[in-house]
C-alpha cells in the first residue's frame, strides 16, 4: 500500500443480489484505485463510478434541462407531488433500506403508489409465494450441505459471477468440500456459459418450462407420464433427473427470469415452489430466487414491514392496498392512471414497455439518481445523489434475506446528498407546502 492510501476490507458489493462482502478496496485521495476479490461487474463499477455522473440538480425550463439550486429542485419536486392525484414513486432497488423507509413515508404522505423493480423481475416469484409458500435457506446452508444444485432459467456465470464460487458448486462447505462432491443440473432454452459447467444440461423448448416442471413433479411422485417427451425433453431423461432429485441429500434450486418472465410467469414459479415443497417429503430441498439488484430484497423487506406488502403499494386512499397487475408501475403507466412520477435510483425509460414509457415521459417527472440516464434526460426535475456502498453507507439485503451494511469508502462530490437526505428534504418541504395551504 502506497503513501496516502487506505484499504478497506470486508467491503459489501453493490451490484447484484449476491452482496459479496469480502471485497478489498483501496482508496487514495478520495478515489478508488484498486479493487480485490470482486467480479468483473463489481470491479468495473468501483473503478468507474464517476463516469456519467449527474453533477448538479437540474430543472426543465422552456423545454430544456438546465442547472438549478438544490432548494429550487426540492421545491419543484414537492410542488409536482402536491398537485398530483396519482403520483408514482418507483425504483428503490439500487438504494439503501434507510432511503426506502423514507420513500414509503413520502408515498403515504402524498397519497401515491410506491413500487420497486420487483414488479418487472421477481414479482411473479412473490405472487407464487403468496399461494404456495417457499422452502428456503440462507446461502451458507447450500454451501455446507448441498450435493445437488440446479440453476433454472438463469445464467450466474454472467449475472451473478461469484455465486458458484462463494455459495454453490465451487464453494467449500463443512460437509461438501469440493466440486466433485456436488452435481450441477442446468435447465435453459440455450446452452449458456453456466450450462457448459453442468453435469446434466436440459435444453427445454422456449416457453415450456411449466410443462417440464409438471412432468418432474409427476416423476418425483412416481406417476406415469403418458407422453414420450415434454417441452422437448425426453421422458426418460425427465425420470432420470427426478431420480437424482429424490436421491440427493440436500438439493438447492436457483431460478431467474427464465421462469419469472416467460409465459406463465407466477404460475411457473408456483410450479417450481410446489416441486421443491413436494421434494421435502422425500429429502431436503430448498429454492431461492436469484435477485438481480443488490437491494431489491431490501426494498421488499422495508415495504413489507411498514405496509404489509412487498411492492406495488397503493396509498391513494390513505391505507396500503396491494394488487400487482393493478397497482404495479408498468400497469399503472400503461393504463395512463398516474399523473406524475418520482423515480429513485432506477432507469425505467430504458426498461419499460413502449406505452408505459410514453406515458411516463409525458407527465411531470422527477428523478433522483447518481448517473445521467435516459430517465434523467426525460425528467422535469433531476437531483444527483451519492452512490450507496461507495459514497454513503446504508443497509442492504442479500438474495437470501441476510442484511448487510454497505460502507462509505469515499466522500461524494461536493454538496451531493444521499437519497435518504434528499427524500427527507422533499418530505419536509411537501409538508410545509401543505401546512401553508399550497
Amino acid at each position: 500500500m502506497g503513501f496516502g492510501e487506505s484499504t478497506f476490507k470486508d467491503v459489501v458489493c453493490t451490484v447484484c443480489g449476491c452482496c459479496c462482502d469480502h471485497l478489498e478496496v483501496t482508496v487514495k485521495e478520495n478515489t478508488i484505485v484498486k479493487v480485490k476479490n470482486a467480479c468483473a461487474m463489481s470491479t468495473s463499477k468501483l473503478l468507474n463510478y464517476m463516469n456519467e455522473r449527474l453533477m448538479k440538480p437540474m430543472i426543465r425550463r422552456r423545454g430544456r434541462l438546465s442547472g438549478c439550486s438544490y432548494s429550487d429542485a426540492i421545491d419543484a419536486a414537492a410542488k409536482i407531488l402536491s398537485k398530483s392525484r396519482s403520483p408514482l414513486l418507483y425504483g428503490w432497488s439500487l438504494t439503501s433500506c434507510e432511503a426506502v423507509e423514507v420513500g414509503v413515508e413520502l408515498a403515504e404522505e402524498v397519497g401515491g403508489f410506491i413500487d420497486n423493480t420487483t414488479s418487472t423481475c421477481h414479482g411473479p416469484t412473490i405472487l407464487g409465494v403468496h399461494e404456495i409458500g417457499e422452502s428456503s435457506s440462507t446461502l451458507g446452508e447450500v454451501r455446507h450441505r448441498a450435493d445437488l444444485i440446479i440453476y433454472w432459467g438463469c445464467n450466474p456465470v454472467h449475472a451473478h459471477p461469484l455465486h458458484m464460487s462463494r455459495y454453490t458448486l465451487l464453494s467449500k462447505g463443512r460437509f461438501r468440500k469440493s466440486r466433485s462432491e456436488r452435481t450441477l443440473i442446468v435447465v435453459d432454452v440455450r446452452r449458456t456459459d453456466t450450462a457448459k459447467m453442468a453435469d446434466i444440461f436440459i435444453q427445454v423448448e422456449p416457453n415450456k418450462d411449466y410443462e417440464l416442471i409438471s412432468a418432474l413433479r409427476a416423476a418425483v411422485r412416481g406417476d406415469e407420464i403418458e407422453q414420450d417427451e415434454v417441452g422437448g425433453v425426453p421422458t426418460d431423461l425427465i425420470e432420470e433427473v427426478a431420480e437424482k432429485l429424490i436421491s440427493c441429500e440436500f438439493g438447492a434450486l436457483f431460478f431467474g427470469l427464465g421462469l419469472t418472465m416467460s409465459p406463465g410467469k407466477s404460475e411457473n414459479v408456483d410450479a417450481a415452489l410446489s416441486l421443491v415443497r413436494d421434494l421435502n417429503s422425500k429429502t431436503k430441498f430448498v429454492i431461492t430466487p436469484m435477485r438481480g439488484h443488490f437491494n431489491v430484497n431490501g426494498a421488499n423487506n422495508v415495504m413489507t414491514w411498514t405496509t404489509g406488502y412487498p411492492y406495488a403499494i397503493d396509498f391513494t386512499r390513505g391505507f396500503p392496498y396491494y394488487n400487482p397487475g393493478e397497482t404495479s408501475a408498468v400497469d399503472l403507466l400503461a393504463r395512463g392512471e398516474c399523473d406524475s412520477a418520482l423515480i429513485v435510483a432506477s432507469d425505467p425509460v430504458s426498461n419499460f414497455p413502449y406505452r408505459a414509457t410514453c406515458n411516463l415521459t409525458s407527465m411531470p417527472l422527477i428523478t433522483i439518481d447518481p448517473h445521467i440516464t435516459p430517465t434523467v434526460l426525460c425528467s422535469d426535475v433531476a437531483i444527483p445523489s451519492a452512490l450507496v456502498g461507495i459514497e454513503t453507507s446504508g443497509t442492504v439485503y442479500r438474495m437470501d434475506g441476510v442484511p448487510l451494511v454497505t460502507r462509505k469508502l469515499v466522500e461524494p462530490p461536493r454538496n451531493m446528498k444521499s437519497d435518504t437526505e434528499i427524500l427527507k428534504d422533499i418530505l419536509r418541504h411537501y409538508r410545509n407546502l401543505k401546512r401553508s395551504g399550497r
Partner: protein
Amino acid sequence: MSALKLTLRRTVVAPLHLEIISPDNLSGKRWREIGEYMVWEGNRKVKLRNLFKIEGEADANLQDTLIEIVGDMSRGRRIGYRMSGGVIRVRGHCGLHVGESMRGGRIIVDGDAGPWLGANMAGGTIEVSGNAGDYVAAASLGTGKGMTGGSITIKGNSGSQAGAWMYSGLIRILGSSGMFPGVHMRGGTIHIAGECSGRAGANMRGGKIVVSGKLPTVLPSFTFEDIRSQTRVDKDNVEGPFYVFSGDNNEDGDGRLFIKIASNPQLKWCEKFLEV
C-alpha cells in the same frame, strides 16, 4: 322497472373506486342523495355528481333496481361489488374488479371488461359482450378460494387464469381463452367454446373444464381416461366427441378435462391408451 342512469360527464384521470355503485347501496335512493356520495379518484375524493350526470331513480325494491352506466369506465374499479340483487348494465367498457364478491343479481357489460371480473363471486350472473381480461372469477391473492357460485358468460375472449382456485359455479367463454383456465380449481365448470392457449386445469383438484376449440397440449400430469360423445355444461348438452383426461395428478386431483376431438388432431396420440 325504473332505471337509474349514470352518464360519465368527464375524463377520468386516475383510478376510480366505484364500489358504491351497486343496487344494494343505491336502491330506493333519490338522484340528489346519490350525487352527494363521495368516491376516490386517485388521492382525491369527488362527489358522484361531479363524475356522472345522474338521472332517474333506483327502485325501492332491490330485485327491481336497474342501474345503467354510460361512458368509458375503463379506469373504474369494483362496480357491483358484493351486490346481492338487481341489475347493473354498463353500456361500454368497464374497468377492473367488476362484480367482485357478487352474491346475486345481474351485471351486463356491453363492451370489454378489465381484469378480475367477478373475482370471489358467490352468486348472480355476469354477461360480457366483448372480451374480458385476466383472472376472471379468480381468488384474491393468497386466499386459495375463488368463485363459489353464480355464472359468468363472456361472448368474446378472456385472458389468463380464468377461474383460478374456483370452488363452484359456471364460467362460459364463447371466444378463446388465455392460458391456465381453472388453475388450482377445486370444483365448478368452465366451458371454452373457442381455443385455449394452454395449461388447462393446471393443479386442479376437482371440477370440469370443457374445451371445444384447440388446446395445443395437455399437461403431463394428466391421465387419459376415455372418449365421450357429449358432456353437460350446466343444463346444456355440449356435443363432442371429447378426449377426457383426469388430473391434476400432481395434486392428487380428480378433475376432468373434456377436449373436443375434432379440433385437436395433435392429441390423437392419447388414443393408444384406450382400453379396447
